[in-house]
Every structure is written in structure tokens, then in C-alpha cells.
């Protein structure tokens, strides 16, 4: 090899006179040995390919083996037997003394036949490029390949690359052969990787200039030019073909990788399913354990009592024993009391897997959809992605869902009519209903087998708030503050613990006093707006359509289209934001901005400090629900898609079933958190999406 550069053609005829007898004998012998039997050989070679793969994964396997040893004997056993077989094969192969890979008979005969039909064949070869040996044996699935695919042979590609390599080498040697430069050039070639990257005219045809062609007198010289150019054209043609081949190959690789990704993705899904099942078992065991524990320590306590009786002679011992009893009491009753007092018993939250799969959904992927209700979904809330979802529907039910299992855990029963609005804080759910009441629930108590003192199942209902006289249309819960708005034209503030109404704000009175104080222009404006707006586009809009509170700050929006900012301490309107021409149906604010959606089809972003409009955009239909964070604004607007506005890119996107299926039902409500969006539709379906 080392002296090969000096005499390229020296051994060109070497194969004809292989005078070295010793090597000939040796090779002949090996051939004789090897050609012992064709079937045996084929078996061996099919193994050989397997072996190669095994060799690569050997280190990996050893690692996993030590790990598996800890857990299951069976796995180890099977692995060991496999290994054993492998070594046997290896030994057999070594005996045959083939130190280069040879193709098996099966492989050899699975050669694509020459037929026509372009697209089909192309696809076939695509599909098969990544398969392993076993599948070649299936005659039926043999790919057939057209000449189109292999227009240029690999060898032609090779010959076409050689001049390029020579050129590169020449450059290196010319460039004083510095090693550093060599590397640099090498890197550059990796990046550009195109054979004729510096494709100026001069370097394309260094010898043949227009000048020469014009002035040339000899036919032979012109012919030589012609030949030369033709040669170069051929070269370029081949290189072009090669490059296009390469692109095809890359496309195939991408396809393959996508398939691979899909496989692994499914695997994660399976793992999570298994985790779910196991966790179910675990929680069952835990609850059973609880029962067993409740029985056991009681016996222990009895024994300690008896011991006190026997050793009550000295006061000291008595005191000590009383201490013991006390501590015993604590251990006995602590689980019970903690279960009763803390809203989330530790048993249930003890072990729940993290949803890994979610990260690998691409935006717009449907994670799940389920038929939750028989009638339209009105509102819902969820605590965290894949956590607990509470849905309310016009079918008069409120359901609690476990979104990691997509199972209905239970119902929240107590309202006499539809639930129209809802807010959720961890495991506390506040619902407001057409029956004029608000109810606070603890969803962690739903679906548990726990019993209260009287032996009835624990009711999830914590508190009921009853003093509105008409339907509750909007509510908000923040920490311990609960605020609700009703069709009786009042906003009430409640005490979460006692259920008593702490403050009632009559909106009309509060605003009229505000109007009297402010300029007549606003007064005229709103008085003209106020009465007529109860029914906008034939839909009755609630007097108070949306509420949000934060400490003492409260924002409300309603059928008059005015967004009001209240101070809960004084119960007075701090500021009115006028701009919407239709009823406000939804709003949300953070520390900087307030975003409102209205039946006038527009979404407006207000600056909380100045009260001015920062931005606004409009959709084709009235906005029904809205939620935003720093990155996105998620809206529903009586269409079958959820509209998402990217606040950083300022781009509008559509998500949901309506993107693909034009007949999908209208989306009524949407909520999202950390790239996990849930939408509820008119037909009672809940869809979960990655966004």
C-alpha cells in the first residue's frame, strides 16, 4: 500500500501470473475447506451477518445483562443461551477460516428483477433499504428496481470522484502540503461536499479558452478540445446523477428515521400504559394496606394498655406508660386524621409517573379524544397536563376524568341545573350553575373508596354558596377569594370556608354612581349601549360574561361590552375599558396586560397600566372562550377549530379536529397549559391536543 503511489500500473497484470506458489496453495486449501457444503455454508453465513450485529451490541448487552441479572432470572437465562449459541456459531465460523464476509445463498438470490414501473419500484426500494437479512428472504416482497434508479453504477460514481480527489490532492501538494491546510480543506469539503464547488469558468476549463477556440487552426486540436469537453460533460452528468441519488438516499433515511421515531414513540406509549396499570395496582395495595394497618395497631395498643394496668404501682412508670399510650394513639390515628384533614391523601399521590410521552408530540398532534358527554360541553378545568379534568355539560352532569387513563373517575352531583362556569385550583373545583348556586368541590375525594364516620362514601362537596337569586354566569377563585357574577346583575364575594357572602356589588348601581361622577360623554355612550345589548346576534349574552380576580383586583366584562376594573376592598369601579362593540364573553389578565374576547368577534389586548389598547385582532365569529400566557392566546369562536395566536411570532394558527375533518363539531371551550390543550365541543366530545 505504501509504495502503491509510485507505480500505479505495475501490478496490473499481476493476476495473470501469480507465481507465488505458497499463497496459491494456501488459498486453494482454504477454498477447498470452505466449499465443503453449500447448505451448511449458507446457514453459516446467514449467521455471520447476525453475528456482526451481535458483536456491535455485545458490550451493550453485557451491561444490560448485569442489570437484568438483578431482576429476572428468566431473561438472563434466555440471554445466556443466546450468547452460548452465538459463541458456538463463532467457533464454527472460525473453523471455516473466512476472514471476510460472504453473502449467504438466500441473500444472493434475492436480487431485484429487472422490470418496469417506476414509482412503484422506487417506493419498494425505499421501504426495504433499512431492513435486515430475514426480510430479504421473503420472495414476495422483493423490490424491483428500474434502471432509472441506478442510472449510474457505483463504479461510474467512483471514477467520477477520482479526478476530484486528484484535484484536491494536487491542491494540497501545491499549497506547500501543510497539514493544517489539509485539514481545513477537508473540513470545507465536508461542508460543501460538492465536487466542483469552486465552479468558476476558469477552473472548469483551464486549458480551453474562447480565445484558443477562436484562433485555433488545426482540426486535431479542436477535436481534442471537443473530446475533452465531452469528457467533462460526462463527468458532470455523472456527478449530477450522483448528487441526486444522494438526495434520494437522504430522503429515504429521513423516512426511515421517522418510522423509527414512530416505533420508539409507540414504545413509550406502551411503557406509560404499563406504568398506569402498575400504579393502579400499587394504589389498590396501598389502600388495602391502610385497612390492614387500621386493624393491626389497635391490637398493639390494647397490649400496651394491659401493661399499664399491670405496672401501675409507681407513678413514674405510670407517667411513662401514659406517654407511650399517647404516642401510640398518635401513630394509630395519625393516618386517619391526616386523611381526613388534608385534601389529598398521600396514598393517591404517592406514586404517579411523569408523562414523558407528551414532550414528543408534535404541535397539532391529537393526543386523545373522548366522548365525555351526551350534550354540549359548556366548560371545564384541569389541574395539569394528564392530570385531573372536570367537565360540565348541558346534559346536566359534571364529570371528573383521570386524563392519564382517560377514565371517568366520578361525578360531582349536587347542582340542580347546568353548570355554566368553573374554576379549578389544584384539587379544588368551583362550579357555578343555572340554579343560582356555587359549589366548591374537592375532586381528590371523587372515586375513592374512603368512607366517612357514618359509613357513607365521602362527599366531594366542600361548600355551597347560595345567595344569588339568578343563574351564576361567571366566577373566579384566587387563593381564598371567590368572586361570582350572576344574571341578577350583582357580583358577590364569598368566604371560602364559611360559604357566607362577604360583599355584594350591584353592578348597575356601582356603575351609575361612576357614570354620574364621570363625564357625560361616557354616560351617554354606555347608557345607549347598556339596555340594547342583552341579545346580540340572537344569542342571549350574560350580563356578566367573565370575571377574574387577583387579590383585591377584579376585572369583569359583560353584555354591555365594557370591561371594568374593580377594587374589591371598596367595591368601586377603578377604571372602565371601552372599546368592544359587542358583549364581552371572556377575559383574562396578568401583571401587564388584560386580554378580552367579545361577541363582536375581536380579541383586544389592553395595557393594564394605561388602559389603552395594545393590540387587537378579529376572527370570523364571536369569541366564546379565551386563555393566554406569555407565548400564546388560545381562543374558541364557534368554529370547529381552536385559534391560537402566537404572541412572539405574531402568527395565527388553527388546531383541533376541524383542521382535518371539516364536519367536526363546534368547539365551545378550550383551556391549555404547558403545550397541552383540551377543547370541549358541541357534541360532547373532549379533545386533547399538543400545541
Amino acid at each position, binding site marked *: *500500500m*505504501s509504495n*502503491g*503511489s509510485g507505480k*500505479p*500500473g505495475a*501490478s*496490473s*497484470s*499481476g*493476476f495473470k501470473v*501469480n507465481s507465488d506458489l505458497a*499463497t*496459491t*496453495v494456501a*488459498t*486453494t486449501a*482454504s*477454498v477447498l475447506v470452505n466449499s465443503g457444503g453449500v447448505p451448511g455454508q449458507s446457514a453459516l453465513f446467514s449467521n455471520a*451477518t447476525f453475528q456482526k450485529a451481535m458483536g456491535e451490541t455485545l458490550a451493550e448487552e453485557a451491561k444490560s445483562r448485569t442489570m437484568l441479572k438483578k431482576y429476572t432470572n428468566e431473561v438472563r437465562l434466555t440471554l445466556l443461551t443466546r450468547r452460548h449459541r452465538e459463541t458456538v456459531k463463532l467457533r464454527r465460523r472460525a473453523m471455516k477460516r473466512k476472514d*471476510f*464476509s*460472504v*453473502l449467504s445463498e438466500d*441473500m*444472493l438470490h*434475492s*436480487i*431485484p*428483477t429487472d422490470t418496469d414501473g417506476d414509482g412503484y419500484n422506487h417506493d419498494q*426500494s425505499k421501504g426495504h433499504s*433499512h431492513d435486515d*437479512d430475514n426480510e*430479504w428472504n421473503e420472495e414476495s416482497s*422483493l423490490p424491483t*428496481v428500474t434502471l432509472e*434508479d*441506478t442510472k449510474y*453504477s*457505483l*463504479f*461510474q*460514481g*467512483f*471514477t*467520477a*470522484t*477520482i479526478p476530484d*480527489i*486528484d484535484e484536491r*490532492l494536487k491542491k494540497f501538494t501545491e499549497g506547500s502540503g501543510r497539514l493544517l491546510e489539509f485539514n481545513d480543506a*477537508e473540513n470545507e*469539503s465536508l461542508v460543501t461536499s460538492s465536487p466542483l464547488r469552486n465552479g468558476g469558468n476558469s477552473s472548469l476549463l483551464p486549458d480551453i479558452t474562447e480565445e484558443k477556440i477562436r484562433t485555433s487552426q488545426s482540426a486535431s486540436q479542436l477535436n481534442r478540445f471537443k473530446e475533452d469537453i465531452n469528457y467533462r460533460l*460526462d*463527468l458532470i452528468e*455523472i456527478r449530477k446523477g*450522483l448528487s441526486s*441519488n444522494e438526495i434520494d*438516499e437522504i430522503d429515504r*433515511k429521513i423516512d426511515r428515521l421517522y418510522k423509527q421515531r414512530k416505533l420508539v414513540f409507540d414504545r413509550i406509549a406502551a411503557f406509560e400504559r404499563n406504568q398506569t396499570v402498575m400504579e393502579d395496582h400499587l394504589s389498590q395495595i396501598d389502600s388495602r394496606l391502610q385497612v390492614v394497618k387500621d386493624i393491626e395497631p389497635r391490637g398493639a395498643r390494647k397490649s400496651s394498655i394491659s401493661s399499664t394496668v399491670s405496672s401501675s404501682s409507681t407513678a413514674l412508670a405510670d407517667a411513662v406508660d401514659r406517654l407511650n399510650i399517647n404516642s401510640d394513639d398518635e401513630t394509630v390515628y395519625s393516618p386517619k386524621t391526616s386523611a381526613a384533614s388534608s385534601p389529598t391523601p398521600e396514598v393517591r399521590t404517592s406514586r404517579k409517573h411523569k408523562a414523558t410521552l407528551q414532550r414528543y408530540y408534535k404541535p397539532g398532534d391529537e393526543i386523545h379524544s373522548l366522548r365525555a358527554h351526551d350534550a354540549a360541553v359548556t366548560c371545564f378545568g384541569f389541574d395539569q397536563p394528564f392530570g385531573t379534568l372536570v367537565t360540565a355539560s348541558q346534559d346536566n352532569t359534571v364529570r371528573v376524568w383521570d386524563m392519564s387513563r382517560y377514565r371517568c373517575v366520578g361525578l360531582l352531583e349536587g347542582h340542580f341545573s347546568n353548570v355554566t362556569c368553573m374554576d379549578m385550583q389544584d384539587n379544588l373545583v368551583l362550579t357555578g350553575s343555572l340554579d343560582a348556586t356555587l359549589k366548591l368541590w374537592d375532586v381528590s375525594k371523587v372515586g375513592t373508596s374512603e368512607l366517612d364516620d357514618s359509613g357513607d362514601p365521602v362527599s366531594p362537596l366542600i361548600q355551597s354558596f347560595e345567595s344569588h337569586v339568578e343563574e351564576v354566569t361567571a366566577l373566579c377563585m384566587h387563593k381564598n377569594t371567590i368572586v361570582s357574577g350572576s344574571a341578577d346583575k350583582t357580583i358577590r364575594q364569598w368566604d371560602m370556608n364559611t360559604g357566607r357572602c362577604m360583599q355584594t356589588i350591584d353592578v348597575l348601581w356601582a356603575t351609575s354612581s361612576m357614570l354620574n361622577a364621570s363625564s357625560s360623554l361616557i354616560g351617554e355612550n354606555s347608557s345607549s349601549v347598556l339596555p340594547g345589548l342583552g341579545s346580540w346576534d340572537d344569542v342571549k349574552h350574560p350580563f356578566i360574561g367573565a370575571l377574574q380576580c387577583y387579590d383585591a383586583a377584579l376585572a369583569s366584562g359583560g353584555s354591555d361590552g365594557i370591561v371594568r376594573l374593580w377594587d374589591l376592598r371598596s367595591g368601586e369601579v377603578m377604571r372602565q375599558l371601552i372599546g368592544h362593540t359587542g358583549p364581552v364573553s371572556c377575559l383574562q389578565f396578568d401583571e401587564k396586560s388584560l386580554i378580552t374576547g367579545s361577541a363582536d368577534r375581536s380579541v383586544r389586548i389592553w395595557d393594564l397600566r394605561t388602559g389603552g389598547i395594545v393590540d387587537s385582532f378579529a376572527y370570523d365569529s364571536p369569541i366564546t372562550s379565551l386563555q393566554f400566557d406569555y407565548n400564546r392566546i388560545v381562543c374558541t369562536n364557534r368554529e370547529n377549530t381552536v385559534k391560537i395566536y402566537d404572541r412572539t411570532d405574531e402568527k395565527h394558527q388553527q388546531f383541533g379536529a376541524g383542521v382535518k375533518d371539516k364536519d367536526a363539531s363546534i368547539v365551545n371551550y378550550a383551556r391549555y397549559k404547558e403545550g397541552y390543550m383540551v377543547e370541549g365541543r358541541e357534541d360532547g366530545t373532549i379533545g386533547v391536543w399538543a400545541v
Partner: protein
Amino acid sequence: MPKFSYLPNLDDAFTPLTEPQLVILEKQVDSEQPEPTTQSLFNFAWGLVKSESQADNKQGIDILTSIFKKEPSRRRECLYYLSVGCYKIGEYKESERYVKVLLQHEPDNLQAQALKQEIDNGLAKNSLIGFAIISGVTAAGVGLASLLLRQRKK
């Protein structure tokens, strides 16, 4: 003669590349890891087959077989390259096996026919030599045995 023949002649396999050329080809493959393109792999493999060292040739054959497995569309031409490679390292049986299959699919391939001819020559030569060795050994054996026998008789 066309400048770029579809398949290499047998001579081509016996004209080695220079060491730097081979290095560049190898680097190209390395740079494309973990998924080198077929063409780069082949370039390197063929460079190895052209090499004068048998170890290189065998490595080249290994790569060629892997290409064969990976790329169904390249199988037929790969057969030819493999056949040439095996011929070069003197594995005439393997070489013959490959070229036979190739000829089944392309009976009119002149280059394959020529290669087959060469392989047959090689095989014949080998069998002749083999025969010579065997006959030589047997002759020697017979001679020895007879010698021994004679000595015993004495």
C-alpha cells in the same frame, strides 16, 4: 471506448490507488458517519479492493457485502464488484458463485462473461496445481511407503 464504463474491467481492480487518495475516501466515509452514503462507502470499498494488500481487499469486500445487503437496487452491480474482489484475493469459488448469479440475471453482460472466463481460468489453474500437489504428495507418500516396506523386508 466510452470514458465511463458501467462496470470496471478486471484490470481496474489491479491498479491500486495512491495512499492519500485512499485516505481521502476513508475520510469522506468517516465524515458521513453514522450514516455514510452508499456512494462514499463504495468509493472507499473499491479503493480498498484496488489496493495491493489482501487485508485491505477483504475489508473492501466486507463493505461491499454490507452495501449489497443495504441497497437492493445496487445488488446486481455489487455482485460484479464482489466477484472481482473475491477473484483478486484468490477466492475463486466465491467469485464464481457471485458471477454465476449475476449471469443468471444478466446473461448478456459481456464484462461478467469475461470475468467468468477469468475465474474459470483461475479455478482450472488452481485445480491443476492442487492436483499436482496431491499427486506429488501421494507420489512421495507411495515412495516413502515403499521405501519403508523395503527396509522392513530387509
